[in-house]
């Protein structure tokens, strides 16, 4: 249940982890009227609702810098409201929404529409504006006006900017406004209609393959352009070993590049497509086991800065089409922490690392200077049970859509409760 209340809440007995300072301490936290009132030793009073957080890890709310809330235009898949609810239930208190709506977010007016409509949502929503008008990759959109209106980054989302000169203009021009440029790295010619990773599995399934080089060729081009002309390049949903190697190489040379990986690319592989499960059809496609290893390594060694869900809701009828015609995308906000925590702690990372990839990492990409749990601040808090074993069920989905191949997977580590201002979610707060 998602609640809205102005009640005073006292979180007692938990361990607070501050990913921005990399500090951990046992402390109580008092929230009043949706704001952080006090952090430290707090005496319980009658008006406070006491929440026992013993044995729980408390963290600032998660940030997702890559989600699709489909509004305006595709409200049958998701809305800003339903997407916010999905986000909150997954521990996210800030979400950046992609501009591939209908019409796309390519003007200051459309950015303002999102800002105004989301003033009182369960989570804070930050729009990303299109790089080019109508995401066509031809004429640059009003990046200045969009940033002034509240856009936090620019991206043509799933439509890669194919023309290198247009991307160069965007890198150079967007610097003035201090926002990252996010280019879906995919060479459409090399993709060649592919619908899954190219390899022996695509051959067996008879499905057109999308080779890993369709991504890495474009990543390489984008890195070269950014290296030449400057600009804040962010590489979304890195899926291949080749791309990880390239980003690592440019990062070590000092290029200001950041990168993200999705929970599904660290948690799943192309083998999920063996029975043609359209819910596992995503862009970029799920890759080989070796690619999956590489993105996990990349996250651990810092080549990849953060986890971003690429939450992409689609209706049941969209996903009940045949594999070729079914659209790409899976939802991910609700399952993100469970999946990432399970996979990454198995790979040797700590729970705190996972939290960093969901808080400090995305904040760094967006250039947000953040401090955790300052007095007077809007409360954005996640309470986590890092040992909790659970199965991700359909009932855990709060999104309007339920296109997830992750349903039925077993996880260790669960978001128990979340506070986002006056909104809250979870058993501790019901």
């Amino acid at each position, binding site marked *: 249940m998602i609640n809205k209340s102005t009640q005073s809440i006292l979180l007692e007995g938990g361990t607070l982890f501050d990913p921005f300072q990399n500090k951990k301490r046992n402390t109580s936290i008092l929230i009043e009227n949706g704001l952080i009132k006090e952090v430290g030793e707090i005496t319980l009073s009658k008006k406070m609702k006491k929440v026992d957080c013993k044995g729980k890890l408390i963290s600032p709310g998660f940030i997702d810098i890559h989600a699709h809330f489909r509004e305006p235009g595709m409200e049958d898949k998701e809305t800003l409201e339903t997407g916010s609810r999905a986000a909150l239930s997954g521990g996210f208190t800030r979400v950046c929404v992609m501009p591939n709506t209908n019409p796309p977010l390519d003007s200051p007016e459309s950015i303002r529409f999102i800002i105004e409509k989301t003033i009182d949502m369960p989570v804070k929503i930050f729009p990303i504006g299109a790089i080019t008008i109508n995401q066509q990759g031809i004429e640059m959109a009003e990046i200045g006006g969009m940033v002034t209106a509240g856009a936090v980054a620019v991206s043509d989302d799933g439509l890669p900017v194919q023309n290198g000169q247009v991307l160069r203009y965007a890198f150079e021009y967007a610097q003035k406004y201090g926002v990252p440029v996010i280019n879906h790295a995919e060479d459409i010619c090399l993709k060649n209609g592919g619908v899954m990773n190219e*390899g022996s599995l695509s051959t067996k399934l008879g499905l057109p393959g999308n080779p890993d080089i369709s991504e890495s060729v474009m990543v390489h081009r984008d890195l070269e352009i950014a290296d030449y002309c400057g600009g804040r390049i962010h590489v979304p949903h890195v899926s291949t070993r080749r791309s990880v190697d390239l980003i690592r190489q440019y990062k070590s040379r000092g290029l200001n590049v950041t990168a993200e990986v999705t929970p599904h690319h660290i948690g799943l592989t192309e083998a999920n497509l063996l*029975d043609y499960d359209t819910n596992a059809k995503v862009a970029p496609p799920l890759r080989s086991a070796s690619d999956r290893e590489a993105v996990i390594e990349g996250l651990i060694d810092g080549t990849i800065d953060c986890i971003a869900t690429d939450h992409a809701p689609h209706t049941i009828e969209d996903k009940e089409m045949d594999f070729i015609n079914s659209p790409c995308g899976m939802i991910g906000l609700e399952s993100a922490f469970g999946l990432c925590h399970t996979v990454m702690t198995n790979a040797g990372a700590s729970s705190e690392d996972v939290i960093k990839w969901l808080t400090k990492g995305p904040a760094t990409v967006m250039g947000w200077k953040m401090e955790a749990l300052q007095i007077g601040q809007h409360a954005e808090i996640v309470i986590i049970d890092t040992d909790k074993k659970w199965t991700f069920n359909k009932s855990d989905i709060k999104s309007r859509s339920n296109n997830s191949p992750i349903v039925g997977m077993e996880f260790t580590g669960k978001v128990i409760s979340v506070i986002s201002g006056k909104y809250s979610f979870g058993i501790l707060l019901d």
Partner: protein
Amino acid sequence: MSVLKNKHLIGLEHIPLEDIKKLIDTGFTFREVLDRPIKKVPSLTGKNVVNLFFENSTRTRISFELAEKRLSADVANFTANSSSLSKGESLKDTVQNIYAMKMDCAVIRHPSPGACVQLTKYVDAVIINAGDGTHEHPSQALLDMMSLKEKFKKIKGLKIGIVGDILHSRVALSNIYGLNKMGAKVILCGPPHLIPKGIHELGVKINSDIDEVIEWADALNVLRIQRERMGIGIIPSVREYRNYFGITQERLDSHKKEIVILHPGPMNRGVEIDSSVADGDQAIILDQVLNGVAIRMSILYLLLGPDGGDTN
């Protein structure tokens, strides 16, 4: 319970060797029926079969329809053009059609790989794959193997060359699975960029020199080249293809050896195969057509008939 391990026929990848043998052997039994003056048996009386064709097909559809009628099944045909698919008709609607018509079995051709697998998740009827995109075409591979067995009396140890655009061929993939299981050796021959990535992992060899393959092989399965792939940079021209991969009379004559020629049809005479080869003594192309009806009777009978199938 079906006498076969699987309830459906989706592809040869998942059909065990014993069942492939059974399907081919039963095919020969029905081949005898086809040689009788009255070519009809009552095996599937009362069974309802629908042919759902979402892609153009003449010979496969007619072959299935003949097989169904000769087994005395009740037959319905449903043909949709692929444009309605691109408009987004969901597979679910297809399923509901099958349910509504109370069908025991659906024979499906669909342009999307995996469509038949997806349908088995939603529907109770027996699904027979009559070609799903670039995935599998199991009845074609079974009839090819039946024709090879008719000619050579065995399949094990045969050396088979599959020639053409392997990347876009469901016939090739089903043949590879089937021939491998039956113990034949397979070499794929075609333009290197039309050999799919990782296919060697399926236990086949690759050789783009057609003359070397002819020298090696007992039989060639010559695939149809889609003319729409010509001259758009994928296959440079008809002339170029014919020169380097075409099964021409001159090429066969130069080898001075017996070699059996198969073709799944429809043929592009003068492109992948010369007329004189297609109509010559070495070709068993028309036997394939007749065996096609017999093997489809075998498939339907073993999945639906009194000795198999779901009788309740």
